[in-house]
């Protein structure tokens, strides 16, 4: 009997592992659709940022109460993994509470901590459900938060509640069986536990075998739920639980005001101005030129493959929390731009391309593109490059970078920007200032001053 359930359990693990690996590979391939970019410098600083932002949840505490609640779920998630380890080993080996004899008196304290967190998670998830669905916090009801993102968030919260309830009721039924000294439960003396003991009265009228059925049901429900959830997470905004770590590690280290340079453009401009394009080649003339000229990509980004892998990882790390959008001056004043939507669009486009490639379809060549099919030009034009979104994001996502790449495509490939921008461009080109003034008048401001005596006369 036990033997059958062990085989069954291992099969479940393998099936879940298969789907999970497949999904992780897909995500990796999707991210690799992006261009190369080196973000391996300064590991010490990068570790520090990751420790502060991802591990330490620093930015979550910009909103202290939400930060605290999020911390409970986060700790619950991490610490309960220990319990899951025991469950998995029990499942494979056909044992029951494998760790109990080894840990002795410590075991009960551990489970009490888990239960404490489980209750914390339940309470927090209930509050979060209320905030989303009853209080209707504005950033969860914006126009880009359509039915699916809303459902996704609710599915996650409800699943977490169910998983935690299964865990607690499993402990309760187990404790009763231990007390009644039924079968193999007899030898284990691990319960009752801090919180689940309050659930024990629910089972008092039940027969031993009924409780045993429930105990097994709760156990299986809990672990199968977790396995399913693990796969589900890869399709969900909840992927941030894993990607927040690499994503913060690879954060932009330069000051926020610095935009990425375009070396291809630098070379062309230097050629036009008659400046040696690459000083490295000048000092070392024997350096062989590459045989085939490096393929010059598009100027700026039209689609996801014109963005870098980091932009794409950003999109997969987005939790759709909307803190960026809530801080965006354009969005606050009713413009269509929402940095969160830029991230969601990028991710949706990646998923679309990935699905198509998986089926041997056209992938990127499907006649669509990130710009126009997903992000409209009106959105892109409204950005003031103020960095409020970048600064607000709890996992260091940079929506502005993507916006600028898309704008570069509009300005340099498509040459379609508002007429007043074109006028500004030609003013800069011809008058060396964005306004139509004569360059020779540039110093006129000083004329009056030169005649003014000092000391306020």
């Amino acid at each position, binding site marked *: 009997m036990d033997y059958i359930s062990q085989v069954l359990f291992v099969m479940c693990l393998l099936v879940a592992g298969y789907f999970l690996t497949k999904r992780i590979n897909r995500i990796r391939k999707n991210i690799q659709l992006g261009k190369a970019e080196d973000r391996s410098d300064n590991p010490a600083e990068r570790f520090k940022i990751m420790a502060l932002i991802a591990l330490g949840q620093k930015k979550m505490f910009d909103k202290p109460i939400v930060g605290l609640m999020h911390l409970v779920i986060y700790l619950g998630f991490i610490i309960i993994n220990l319990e899951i380890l025991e469950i998995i080993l029990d499942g494979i080996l056909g044992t029951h509470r494998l760790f109990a004899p080894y840990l002795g008196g410590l075991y009960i304290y551990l489970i009490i901590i888990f239960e404490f967190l489980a209750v914390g998670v339940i309470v927090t998830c209930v509050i979060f459900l209320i905030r989303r669905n009853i209080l209707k916090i504005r950033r969860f009801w914006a126009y880009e938060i359509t039915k699916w993102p809303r459902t996704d968030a609710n599915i996650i919260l409800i699943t977490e509640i169910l998983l935690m309830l299964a865990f607690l009721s499993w402990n309760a039924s187990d404790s009763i069986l231990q007390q009644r000294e039924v079968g193999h439960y007899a030898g284990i003396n691990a319960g009752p536990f801090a919180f689940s003991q309050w659930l024990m009265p629910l089972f008092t009228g039940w027969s031993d075998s009924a409780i045993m059925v429930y105990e097994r049901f709760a156990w299986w429900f809990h672990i199968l739920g977790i396995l399913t959830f693990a796969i589900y997470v890869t399709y969900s905004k909840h992927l941030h639980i894993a990607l927040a770590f690499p994503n913060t590690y690879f954060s932009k280290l*330069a000051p926020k005001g610095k935009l990425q*340079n375009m070396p291809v453009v630098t070379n062309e401009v230097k050629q036009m101005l008659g*400046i040696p394009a690459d000083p490295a080649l000048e000092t070392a003339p024997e350096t062989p030129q590459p045989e085939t000229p490096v393929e010059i990509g598009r100027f700026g980004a039209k689609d996801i493959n014109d963005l870098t892998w980091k932009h794409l990882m950003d999109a997969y790390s987005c939790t759709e929390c909307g803190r960026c959008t809530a801080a965006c*001056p354009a969005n606050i*004043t009713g413009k269509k731009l929402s940095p969160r939507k830029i991230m969601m669009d990028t991710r949706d486009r990646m998923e679309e391309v990935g699905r198509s490639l998986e089926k041997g379809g056209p992938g990127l060549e499907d006649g669509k593109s990130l710009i126009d099919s997903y992000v409209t030009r*009106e959105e892109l034009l409204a950005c003031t490059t103020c960095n409020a979104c970048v600064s607000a994001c709890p996992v260091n996502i940079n929506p502005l970078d993507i916006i600028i790449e898309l704008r570069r495509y509009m300005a*340099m490939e498509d040459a379609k920007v*508002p007429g007043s921008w074109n006028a500004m461009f030609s003013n800069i080109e011809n008058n060396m*200032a964005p306004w139509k003034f004569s360059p020779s008048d540039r110093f006129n401001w000083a004329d009056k001053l030169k005649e*003014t005596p000092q000391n306020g006369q």
Partner: protein
Amino acid sequence: MNPTTYNVPTLAEMIAEGKEPEILFWVGCAGSFDDRYKAVTIAFVKILNAVGINFAVLGPEENCTGDPARRAGNDFLFQMQAIANIQVLNGYNVKKIVTACPHCFNTIKNEYPELGGNYEIIHHSTFLQQLINQGRIKLQGGGEFKGKRITYHDSCYLGRANKIYEAPREVLAALDADLVEMKRSRAKGLCCGAGGSQMFKEAEPGSKEINIERTEEALATGATVIASACPFCMTMLTDGVKNKEKETQVKVYDIAELIARAEKL
């Protein structure tokens, strides 16, 4: 008092005389052409003169840094400007630059080095703060802003972009004024609406203009002076105050103007 006139030498003149300035004052397009911001340029030059700083300007040799072109997506035009400017600056062997424009500051500080332009660049807020700390600007405490309610609007390109939050506030603190903060300030500050080349086009349709939202926030503090440290913010907030028909009660000043006025320059 000695009726010497103000001195605004160009770098070319100075070099021709075999002299070298301690710093180059990068005026910027707004500082050169915008009527309102020209007053800021003049105020700053008066301070430099009064303190006896050995400075020069590029005058007609200065070009747009290219910031508006880059933010609008035209990296070609940006780099044309940047590289031309860098040639001029490197040609004169410029080492230290001060500017009253956060956009020029950001571009020269963060984006020029990759293109071969490496300078020590200081925004005028930091520069003024240093002069105050060194005792070279000695405010008597008092002056026309003593006890007045002043609120400071963070420029995105100084604040979030380059983490300069305290210098302008410390300059204001030296005025002995009553500093009040807006609801959104420092890292959480709200943009004036002009960055990212928005200055050079109509805003996209929405429910409100960004500068109006920001001005309302500034007015809500009850301040009679809105201090800024950026030409774009200056324009946007001045327009906002006009739009609210508050221009007689509430004034928008650059921090350099506040110092110059307090010093009666």
